[in-house]
């Protein structure tokens, strides 16, 4: 089974690590279909752009508040490059404007910090639905 590629974009080190640890923990407890994932980390929008072009991830966890560019702008760029990419927006404070903008630009879902196991699982389940609808049997 092909390992989904996940790009974690957050300027806070421990947030990326927390997401990665918890996705792996969910996989270990068999709450997710895949047992393993390929992770890539970016702390800035610039790095995220490079990694996105290079690896063409299946999933992006994308913080809205980045130091060098808005996560919403990145969302738009990523969806143009790879429309089928499942993008999970993350924010410490959601506003109606941010949420509706994210939906219009094609975000799959939206997580409001603080992180919880339930929220990460819910986002991953949404990702799984999209991922397994897209991946053809030959590529699994």
């Amino acid at each position, binding site marked *: 089974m092909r390992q989904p590629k996940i790009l974690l974009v957050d300027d806070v080190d421990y*947030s990326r*690590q*927390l997401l990665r640890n918890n996705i792996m923990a969910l996989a270990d407890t068999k709450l997710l279909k895949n047992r393993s994932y390929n992770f890539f980390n970016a702390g800035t929008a610039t790095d995220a752009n490079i990694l996105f072009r290079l690896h063409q991830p299946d999933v992006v966890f994308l913080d809205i508040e980045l130091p060098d560019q808005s996560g919403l702008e990145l969302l738009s760029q990523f969806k143009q490059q790879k429309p089928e990419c499942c993008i999970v927006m993350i924010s*410490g404070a959601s506003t109606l404007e941010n*949420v509706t903008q994210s939906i219009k630009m094609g975000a799959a879902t939206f997580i409001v*910090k603080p992180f919880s*196991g339930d929220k990460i699982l819910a986002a991953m389940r949404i990702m799984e639905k999209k991922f397994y609808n897209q991946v053809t049997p030959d590529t699994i």
Partner: protein
Amino acid sequence: MTGCKHILIAEDDSFLLSLLELQCSSLSMQTCCVENGEQLITEALSYQYDIILTDIQMPICDGIQAMQILRQLGYDRPIFAMSADSIDCEGFDCILQKPVDIDQLASLCEQTPQQPKVQLQINSELTSLFYQNLAQLSQDFTGALQQEDFVTMRQICHKIKGGAASFGLMNLSQLADRMQQRLATATPETNLVQESRQFLLILQQSGADNETA
């Protein structure tokens, strides 16, 4: 009994909201109450509720818009609407007639399965990273305070708010949230420097508490 289910109630009429809160509490449910659709969306995305109960006509964003936004984001848990008028709208799991019949609500809640709770996994390495970051933010806040750079201070509070809550420092998270709001909405008369100094002391104490733990 419905067990200890978590219900999010959205209603702009404060009297009805209090009544529903009391009724749900009497059904042994944990309640969270909000007054408009925007708050409903934020709250539903912030915590994982077993049930959402929403009024239709509310300010800023009505119950139907809020439900549709949540559904577009893949929210698949039950959302019940309540309305004095008869409405026909896809996306709600049930539409209750106002005033809400508490027995009907109890029955619906009884049938709703309680969502399994998944604990956030935090190991010592992660905790250590968090406290290193907190120490850095504390230094950055000190520097910004000396410059009276309230924009940077607000951004730092925003980061602390999200991170601290993930690591169980709920008090610090709430204080950071309050400080962030104060910094965003302060008038010239507000003694922001004094309030910020008090916040910085608490921030530094949070880091020190970890070192002595």
